[in-house]
């Protein structure tokens, strides 16, 4: 009979207790502010660096919020809060080196860059002065040559994979090998080009074109991957409409498939360029280093921006007697690093813009 009795007032009290106590919404902000304040205090008192203080604040936050939650909300909610805090902390910590690095490069780089830095090479430069003119041209020429080699090979391979090789053994093998190529360490690519040219020209050979070969080995898999993806996005209706008009397959590919996918393919190529333009190790090994301008890819050593940074870093020169501060090479290295990063970022941005404006029109039914 008890089930039919009208509810007693204290039943409501029980159901009210079922809802667990929760921390107020502002608890996260409060703990955050307190941790930042405490960490700031410690940093000021002990003279730690800014990064140390930030790390301490994050640690306090990760410890503080779950503890409070454990006292109020119970074990499971505390574990949830702890995991959330850890995930946010992981993100924050990963941002630290990125911000630090960009700040260092911009800060040191801007003071190094002037007109002379961009228009002078390093010939006969002792001490400060000199510039990146030769390295800039070397990077442009070597990267251009690498692009000229790898774009036709990469594009035709992608066409083969999508249009001709469907299900064939060669296509499957190629897909696998492209995967393997993605994993080649850049220095091994450099050694490959070196041994190729050493075999042809003798052991002392160092030429810019070798660098281009090494870079194209790194670039081809990226181009194949992105071009293949884009070609697969082209709706089959377009191809069939073209066949129905009696157009041969190769003209269909050239006139219908490629123009449809063009935006995506260009994006992929630009991204691939931005990936290899910062490669150092292969160029160091094959193209060598020099202080003078060299416009000839096929004769003699060629300086490139990444190698320039490395050589300025590893042999920075000496600080003049009676002067304080870093050796002159460090400033040049930072300046060149800023130029290189700006080039890479601009390429990335261009790729993104092309990608959004020329996005392939996919099948509407999908």
């Amino acid at each position, binding site marked *: 009979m008890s089930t039919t009795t009208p509810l007693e007032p204290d039943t409501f009290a029980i159901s009210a207790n079922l809802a667990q106590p929760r921390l107020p919404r502002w608890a996260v902000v409060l703990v955050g502010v307190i941790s930042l304040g405490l960490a700031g205090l410690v940093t000021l008192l002990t003279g730690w660096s800014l990064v140390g203080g930030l790390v301490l604040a994050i640690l306090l936050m990760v410890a503080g919020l779950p503890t409070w939650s454990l006292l109020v909300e119970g074990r499971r909610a505390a574990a949830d809060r702890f995991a959330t805090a850890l995930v946010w902390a992981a993100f924050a910590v990963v941002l630290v080196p990125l911000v630090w690095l960009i700040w260092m490069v911009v800060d040191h780089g801007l003071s190094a860059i002037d007109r002379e830095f961009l228009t002078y090479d390093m010939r006969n430069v002792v001490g400060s002065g000199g510039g990146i003119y030769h390295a800039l041209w070397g990077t442009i020429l070597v990267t251009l040559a690498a692009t000229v080699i790898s774009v036709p090979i990469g594009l*035709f391979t992608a066409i083969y994979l999508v249009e001709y090789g469907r299900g064939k053994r060669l296509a499957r093998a190629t897909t696998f090998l492209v995967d393997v190529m993605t994993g080649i360490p850049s220095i091994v690519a450099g050694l490959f080009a070196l041994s190729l040219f050493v075999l042809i020209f003798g052991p002392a050979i160092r030429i810019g074109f070798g660098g281009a070969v090494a870079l194209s080995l790194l670039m081809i898999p990226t181009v194949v991957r992105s071009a293949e993806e884009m070609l697969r996005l082209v709706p089959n209706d377009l191809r069939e409409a073209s066949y129905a008009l009696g157009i041969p397959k190769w003209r269909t590919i050239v006139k219908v498939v490629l123009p449809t996918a063009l935006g995506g393919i260009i994006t992929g190529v630009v991204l691939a360029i931005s990936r290899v333009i910062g490669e150092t*190790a292969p160029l160091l090994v094959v193209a060598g280093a020099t202080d003078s301008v060299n416009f000839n890819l096929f004769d003699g050593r060629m300086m490139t921006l990444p190698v320039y940074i490395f050589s300025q870093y590893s042999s920075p020169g000496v600080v003049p007697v009676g002067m304080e501060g870093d050796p002159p090479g460090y400033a040049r290295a930072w300046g060149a690093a800023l130029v290189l990063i700006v080039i890479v970022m601009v390429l990335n941005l261009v790729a993104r813009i092309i990608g959004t404006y020329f996005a392939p029109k996919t099948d509407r039914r999908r």
Partner: protein
Amino acid sequence: MSVTAPPQPRPAKAVVRPGDRIFAGAARVAALTIMLALAGVFVFLAIEGLPGLSAPAHIYAPAEDFWSYVGPLVFGTILAAVVALIIAVPFSIGVALFISHYAPPRIAAPVAYVIDLLAAVPSVVYGLWGGLALASAIRPVMDWLYENLGFLPFFAGPPSVTGRTMLTAGIVLAIMIVPITTAISREVFAQTPRLHEEAAMALGATRWEMIRLAVFPYARSGVISAVMLGLGRALGETMAVAMVLSASPVVTLNLISDTNPATIASNIASNYKEATPDKQALLIATGLVLFAVTFAVNFAARWVIGRSERNVAR
């Protein structure tokens, strides 16, 4: 007038035009070129590297033969990569979860873009930053590790005064592989079936319990392969290690002292300059060893990915 039956249409025969033949040939040649290039990497490295296996003894100084020369380098390579992985993997998983499950949708895409930016920074710039900024900034941390954890072989010290140690190199490497492992893990996490997640939530799981019960079991093999691809990158990375580490041919687990083993790649980069033909052959031979190691690691990673894809298809 008898109406003649229209002639039966002949079965359509594919017309092969010369243009078609040339184009298809070009496409096939391109695919074959890739195969040749990869075979060429093996062949040319082997041709130029084999003399390095049996060069005069003074080339290997201070070691005696090839294997005792390359041994410490292999050890250093693996040590640096493992240190980098130990640091990078927790952060990558954290950031990947942040992007796929924690961040508000409005900021998830920009965050993913920022992490990709980390991958776009050239390795030589990481090396510059590691050598000139991080190395000196990290010295207090190494002092602290030495004083408090000095009983572990990793922190036996004495701590380096320049800060150019294996630990620093490992941290720089870790920052460089975080984007790769994050990108793959985040994709795998995002592929978790929505119904699994919602079922866990409906049973009253907190978000963390939902991730532990629904997301992690589903994503395990994907994350493993992401880690192995990161390992492949860490093994082959040259400049960051060459610019941060002051290397000597030793085998030591000590991460914070002045004597650190070099890696294969950094050893090539720092010795190529004064290379005689004999030495050059030796360096190419070590490169062949590096290629073999990374090839094996990447191959294993692809295999794990392939297996997990089959499991998902079920």
